[in-house]
């Protein structure tokens, strides 16, 4: 059964549609499906995640079948098919970062935020998850926060605590 959020109708702002128009103009005529990945990023940045209603709207905009959007959104790891916290803290969990303490950092985040990987804190502010290599292996441990994917390097427990406190105050 669909969750309540998934049944909610979705509206795209005029700014979002203008952005989609600009993105679509980057490709030759008839190849507008190329705009799919960038547009999904824009939609997620505005709505926080990709509901099936939102994906259907993207399909209608690009004049493609909804399944063409679903199969792409479910293939790539950056698209959220479920609601997440306002801030999703994504920690690199691949080899080189683990050599410099990424696993301990994730344990610490789980304790500090009080939620398991992928879950949302009660106030709706935070989620966290381990992600694969973020291409910053020399500056690990690292984490990023969407939708602009702000990047934090050379982390330790204290720096993460400070970051979480700052985000809470925003």
């Amino acid at each position: 059964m669909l969750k309540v959020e998934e049944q909610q109708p979705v509206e795209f702002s005029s700014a979002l549609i203008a952005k989609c128009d600009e993105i679509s103009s980057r490709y030759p005529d008839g190849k507008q499906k190329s705009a799919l990945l960038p547009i999904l990023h824009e939609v997620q940045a505005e709505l926080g995640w990709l509901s099936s209603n939102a994906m259907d709207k993207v399909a209608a905009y690009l004049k493609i079948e909804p399944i063409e959007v679903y199969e792409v959104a479910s293939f790539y790891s950056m698209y959220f098919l479920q609601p997440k916290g306002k801030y999703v803290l994504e920690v690199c969990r691949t080899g080189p970062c683990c050599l410099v303490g990424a696993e301990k950092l994730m344990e610490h985040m789980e304790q500090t935020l009080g939620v398991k990987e992928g879950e949302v804190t009660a106030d709706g502010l935070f989620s966290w998850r381990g992600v694969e290599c973020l291409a910053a292996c020399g500056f690990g441990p690292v984490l990023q926060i969407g939708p602009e994917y702000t990047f934090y390097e050379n982390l330790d427990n204290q720096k993460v605590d400070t970051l979480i406190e700052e985000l809470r105050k925003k």
Partner: protein
Amino acid sequence: MARKLLLEHINVPGINTLDVYRQKGGYRAVEKALKTLTPDEVVEEVKKSGLRGRGGAGFPTGMKWSFLAKPEGVARYLVCNADESEPGTFKDRYLMTYIPHALIEGMIVSSFALGANTSYIYVRGEMMPQIRILERAIAEAKAAGFLGKNILGSGYDLEIYVQPGGGAYICGEETALLESLEGKRGNPRIKPPFPAIAGLYGCPTVVNNVESIAAVVPIINDGGDEYMKIGIGRSTGTKLISASGNLVRPGVYEIELGLPVEEFIYSDEYCGGIANGKRLKATVAGGSSVPVLPANLTLKLANGEPRLMSYESLSEGGFATGTMMGSGGFIAFDEDQCIVRNTWNFSRFYHHESCGQCSPCREGTGWMEKVLHRLEHGHGKMSDIDLLVDVSKKIEGNTICPLGDAAAWPVASAIRHFRDEFEWHVKEPIKSLQGNYGIANYAVPIPKAEVKQEN
């Protein structure tokens, strides 16, 4: 001091802006190519330089360019592969962050050489800050007349667009990247046809790594012959090495190919040795996909000669005693690191990133992860070790794209060189959960080869 071609001005304040970049000689290559050279002459210079693809495969860039089909009336494309996702590799992010115009300038010269009027830079979606940086650099270049219609009065038109990915390692494979750029899942295509014949939208396409494209700039400025003089043998020019792991100074270094590995790890000009006064246990020299080597084989060849940072020297000895240059992702492990745990970590990565198209890779990577997980967590059996070798052999060479090989090699090489550590995990499950196997004899120096005197 070694020569620097790409990172020479990295510490100049404002080098990320067009003005400062031009003060430091930027966009000379565009003026030289568009005003004084024909596209074929640019291709010829790149061929002469001996530049080899910096993304991992090491295929000669000039030769790749010369394969591009040029049918009448069909568009051609240059696509820059900035989907840097190989664990241990972070040089492209560095270059794009600090000197974005080096990539844009390289894109203009390379697109001109290939006759492309629209080019795309496919950047992994997580690098949103770098996407913004590149978009700003493109806008600056366009305002200065280096992009758009009739560039510098040459009659040549070019537009460059930045395309974000969606978070998938597989899109670093060139045909998967093209699928993704067409708005589809990143499933690699069956080759042939190669992208040079049928690539983006079925048109002839060249896909090159960020560093390869940036290297075209010094090649055109100084000439292919000058570039070829740097380096050693068929490993010409300079290479960006991403150094990570337990090093005193991890980071991105530009080296002249042919530098001894020992100097790279221990000298103060580069990594400054192993962090916290520990000893080196093992390295992965070219990104997670290449075979892992124990410290002794990292520093010396099997015959005791010093190993060098070059395509040939790193692969000397084949997979029995060698590894590969790959993308230049150099990961160092100190004596406290567990090879089994790291191999399990890499296996989880490949299982997560397998696109699922070929069953040997889709199923095999999952099996390897599972078996390595139980070995690492104290439930392994002695037969698991050979089972892993068996599974890795059945993946290798049996998949459409090289992700299968990339998943198989780290596992096979870890068992080849560190089998006693795997066996220890089976024999001593409790100890292996509490501590590590240590450095054993992995750092025992290899004796210098005896040189036969000929009378």
